[in-house]
């Protein structure tokens, strides 16, 4: 971080935010207006979902949202009929374990793959990047059959194992980008001070890598919270079901009973946690958002 002299901080506009030229200013103004419209559109969109969850179905399809005031039937139906809270607990469990496990496995690996040269390193890097692009549907069946043979298909931790295994490439590749920006001098000084390699990593590098770790964890959290296909196949039993899968079954059962108010109420219940997490942690997300760039 570069320190500016004090007078620089009092300066009204930093050089980065100055727009050069009349044309540039005009384009900037146009951009601002466009962003305002875009945001208004987003608010309308998401606001519609929220309001629809408080509106009886008949009024939703006539576009008379909240015509009869706040109607809580959608939420009470869901709370009464579906064990939404137990699915909520499952989702928290899977998501937290998967996120923690991924950092535990991927951060050290990404560190080694970025900062050390060893035979096969290039191969690792390439394989990991390519594996990012494999369609998940393709991995599904063989993986399932393998877990079945290992007699693991019917066990609550299976989904976590699957998330861990399939998530490694994305998390590792992201963290590789992040570690590329972390200076090695500290690590080396740690070694001179008598730390082992592993010890130096945990004591000296991990604290430095915190922003990147926080960011990828938030991305992972949002991803796994909404994840559907893997959760459907690997936690097919009701007791193990996640919120995203429950939402899908809720959507079908609301459709077959024509209760679109309940459908939207379910949607709101599922997205509120992710929105809260995002809003609370948006600063951290921003600080680590660039780390994913694969250098070189």
């Amino acid at each position: 971080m570069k320190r500016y002299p004090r007078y620089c901080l009092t300066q009204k506009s930093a050089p980065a935010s100055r727009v050069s030229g009349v044309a540039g200013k005009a384009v900037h103004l146009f951009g601002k207006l466009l962003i305002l419209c875009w945001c208004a559109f987003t608010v309308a969109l998401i606001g519609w979902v929220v309001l629809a969850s408080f509106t009886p179905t008949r009024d939703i399809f006539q576009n008379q949202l909240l015509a009869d005031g706040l109607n809580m039937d959608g939420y009470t139906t869901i709370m009464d009929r579906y064990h939404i809270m137990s699915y909520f607990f499952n989702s928290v469990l899977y998501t937290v374990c998967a996120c923690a496990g991924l950092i535990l496995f991927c951060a050290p690996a990404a560190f080694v793959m970025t900062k050390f040269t060893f035979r096969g390193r290039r191969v690792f890097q390439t394989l990991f990047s390519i594996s990012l692009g494999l369609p998940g549907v393709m991995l599904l069946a063989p993986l399932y059959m393998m877990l079945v043979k290992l007699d693991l298909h019917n066990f609550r931790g299976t989904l976590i194992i699957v998330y861990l295994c399939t998530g490694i490439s994305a998390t590792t590749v992201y963290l590789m980008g992040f570690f590329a920006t972390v200076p090695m001098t500290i690590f080396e000084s740690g070694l001179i001070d008598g730390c082992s390699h592993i010890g130096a990593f945990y004591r000296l590098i991990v604290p430095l890598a915190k922003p990147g770790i926080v960011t990828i964890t938030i991305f992972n959290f949002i991803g796994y919270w909404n994840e559907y296909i893997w959760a459907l196949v690997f936690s097919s039993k009701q007791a193990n079901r996640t919120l995203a899968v429950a939402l899908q079954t809720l959507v079908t059962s609301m459709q077959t009973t024509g209760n679109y108010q309940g459908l939207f109420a379910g949607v709101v219940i599922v997205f509120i946690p992710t929105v809260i997490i995002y809003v609370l942690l948006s600063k951290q997300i921003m600080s680590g958002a660039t780390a994913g760039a694969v250098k070189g």
Partner: protein
Amino acid sequence: MKKSLHRMYLAFLSPVVIAFLVAYLYPVLRTVQMSFYEVSDISSSSDTWKFVGLFNYLDLFSRQLFLVSFRNMLLIFLAGGAAVFLISLFFAWVLHKGMFMGELWRNLIYLPTVITPVAMITVWTQYVYNNRFGLLKTIFETLGLDTLAAIPWTSTQYAFWAMLLAYCFCSIGGNLLVYMAAMKKIPDDLFEAAFIDGATEGKIFFRITLPLIADNIKTQFTFWTIGCIGFFLWSRVFSVVPSDPTTITPASYMYDQLFGTSISSNAVATSGTNVGMGAAIGVVLCLVTVIAMAVINLIFPKEKYEM
């Protein structure tokens, strides 16, 4: 010292290597193997498989619906990609240059990304595109743009573009976030110098900003490519009609071949499974991924700008 280093290699690399072998290598090899066999059901054991050589591949490329799905995927990649990258870069530039309550706008643009696609698709199809009270219709009518207001967005003619528009809308936030963060890291002195030299804004953007965030653009572009190759959920939820040629993509076609049914409860048509062919699609998509990665590495500049 050396021992300590080797111990670190072992401890740090072995978990991910094992996970990689389990979750990627094995399924890929298995899929490649399956693609040369006739397999009746996804769960049928390997002793019931029948070797058919390259038949699945030949059959696949003679299938019109697969070619249609491939064309759809390319269109999403090119048209959607152009829109997403241009808009997100532009928005990132605007917000980077400063805007009243910029953080709020950034968060709002990002918001659709965190909401489950199932919800977003329902809103777009039932509300935004509705041709009686839809948001788009209302907006265009208020602006007096009657031709635009009259577009039947979700009819077979426009359904693909409607899906793409909604998908792009939800994809912009993620890109914007990364570009803004990257622009923030560019040292002020560079802008200052250019400003004092009287460079136009266009020059500053293309000569300084863009090259310095090229790495990030490359990463985002890689993710976009991957997203297009695996494009699945939007296609299936946007159209409840199975194998709808207007929105089908290869990954969705593969799902049909593997599982034979639709996620939707209202499926009027069901197809039989053809697991061998589904595997062949998987292999083809893998090859496409590898080629795409290679091309991306070729077209993005190798030279490194030091910050």
